[in-house]
């Protein structure tokens, strides 16, 4: 297969390229450089929104596109974020239709459902995307998810796969990994919700599994078996501090504005309420099984220090 990966220089782009390049032809598109790129991976260093980008797809003859060129930096201005993510994604979708690419894989997140008091223990793919109710920054990701869903219905000839993985743990700068890397980990006193985490390598495997012919649709992706938050914290080996929940949000918001924390205030809800998913359909459709259990995942987190976070 000839596979195009947008955002190949990012963490998942690189992990995925490593998995695919020996068996498939991999073409990467990213405006960032790709250090230590395997020799057989072709890289086009260009902004996905540029007109010139279309040439890559026109000449490419791709069998699949994996669109990972999505910004998740909650510090970036929301306007930048929005245009980059939505424009970039709609461009890629247009190219898929125009150049008859039969497969498109996109990465969303289980965060789109949002942690809520009334959530069932396991959310299915049909659950409403309520993540934006309290957390404005995530509306971007919800818009992207919705955009991909409408594309899925409008263009049945492109097998679109939207993956919604749970909290990703690894050398990534996302809220759950940042949180678990803190030296003193804050917790909400009296709350210990069940959580699902997934090793970053398993996310890359899940994307690879989604490339299988015949797989299409929206899928939740879960990693290790659910555990209480307290178990995760114990595995970090770090001391934890309990805060009363009614003070926590205001405090975190202050710290965020003062740039003393990388943890957006509404994410505090994840420490209070459950936001877990049922990954049965994805397992059934692809046979995917996460390779890393909780111990392996948390050991991996301990190995990824701040220095790894380019």
């Amino acid at each position, binding site marked *: 297969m000839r596979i195009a990966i947008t955002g190949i220089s990012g963490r998942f782009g690189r992990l995925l390229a490593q998995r695919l390049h020996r068996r498939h032809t991999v073409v990467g598109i990213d405006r960032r450089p790709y250090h230590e790129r395997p020799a057989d991976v072709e890289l086009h260093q260009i902004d996905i929104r540029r007109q010139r980008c279309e040439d890559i797809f026109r000449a490419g003859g791709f069998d699949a596109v994996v669109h990972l060129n999505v910004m998740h930096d909650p510090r970036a201005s929301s306007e930048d974020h929005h245009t980059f993510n939505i424009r970039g994604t709609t461009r890629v979708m247009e190219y898929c239709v125009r150049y008859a690419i039969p497969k498109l894989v996109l990465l969303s997140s289980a965060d789109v459902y949002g942690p809520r*008091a009334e959530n069932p223990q396991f959310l299915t793919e049909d659950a409403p995307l309520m993540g934006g109710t309290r957390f404005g920054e995530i509306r971007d990701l919800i818009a992207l998810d919705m955009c991909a869903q409408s594309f899925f219905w409008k263009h049945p000839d492109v097998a679109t796969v939207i993956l919604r993985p749970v909290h990703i743990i690894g050398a990534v700068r996302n809220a759950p990994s940042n949180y678990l890397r803190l030296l003193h980990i804050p917790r909400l006193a009296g*709350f210990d919700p069940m959580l699902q985490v997934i090793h970053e390598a398993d996310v890359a495997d899940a994307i690879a599994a989604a490339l299988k012919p015949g797989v299409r649709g929206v899928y939740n992706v879960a990693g290790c078996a659910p555990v*209480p938050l307290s178990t995760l914290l114990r595995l970090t080996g770090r001391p934890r501090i309990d805060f009363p929940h009614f003070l926590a949000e205001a405090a975190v918001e202050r710290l965020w504005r003062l740039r003393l924390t990388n943890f957006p205030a509404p994410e505090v809800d994840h420490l209070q309420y459950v936001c877990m998913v049922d990954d049965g359909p994805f397992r059934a459709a692809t046979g995917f099984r996460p390779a890393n259990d909780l111990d392996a995942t948390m050991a991996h987190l301990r190995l990824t220090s701040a220095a790894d976070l380019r």
Partner: protein
Amino acid sequence: MVVARMLALGSIDLSRALHHAEAIGRVLRGLELTVERRLPADLIDRIDTLKADLGGRSTDDFGFDPEAIKPLAPFLAWLYYEYFRVETFGLHDLPAGRVLFVSNHSGQLPIDGMMIGSALLFEGRPPRAVRSMIERWVPSLPFVSTFFARVGQVLGTPENCRTLLLQDEAVLVFPEGIRGINKTYDKAYQLQAFGHGFMRLALENRTPIVPVAVVGAEEQYPALWNLEPLARLLALPAVPITPLFPLTGLLGLLPLPVRYRIHFGRPMYFSGDPHEEEAAMHDRVMQVKQAIQDMLDRGVAEREHIFW
């Protein structure tokens, strides 16, 4: 009126005064913390058998941790054997595998759920962990939410009930919800309106329904009046006024040491389309409701006294 009714159930019958004095003595002796004496020897083993289903994990998917019950076991056993002196009926004719217990709900605080759970853990053959469907505001409460999750209680949503039944668990539902538990004493042992959700789930997952009638809980906090405006102000489900609360302060918060009688009915099997209209569900729900009401009526008529 309430006090009169409670007294009328036997204590002014002079010919039986001696018998009652003895019984009062038994209650008072029971109130002493004589935990060790009555703690069933195999209780810890019974709790350990619940861990078999976890497959080596410390909690299940819902956060249930049998180990968390162990430190509570002496207190639970004291409540069960000494304070409420629970008597069970029909406990040994229960179906194995997935089952839906449908019970009346009463007594202001959900001690009825706790006692049903204790009955199945202490006396069930085999011991079973009962997963009650709890109110939707519970996950917002610190400590309470965590405690409930650890002892196996689960947020009451249809999805959660389905997940548990598919795992062959024993699920306990109170279809009256807060309408039942917060009713005042003038409505004692009269079942309030039933929700229909449990019937759809039973049909969908081919689950036997076991009707359960709890007799005794109505008298633990006989509410004369519910201060609804204050309850709304404090965001509480109810603020009951009982003969002892708030008149006697903190003492009034203790439940009266009534005797619990828990009647488990014969399993009821229903079949049909779980997506049928409400009216079709209503008929089936009424059969379950009637079964519980019959057991309640019989249980109330047959009991010797509220306290013994």
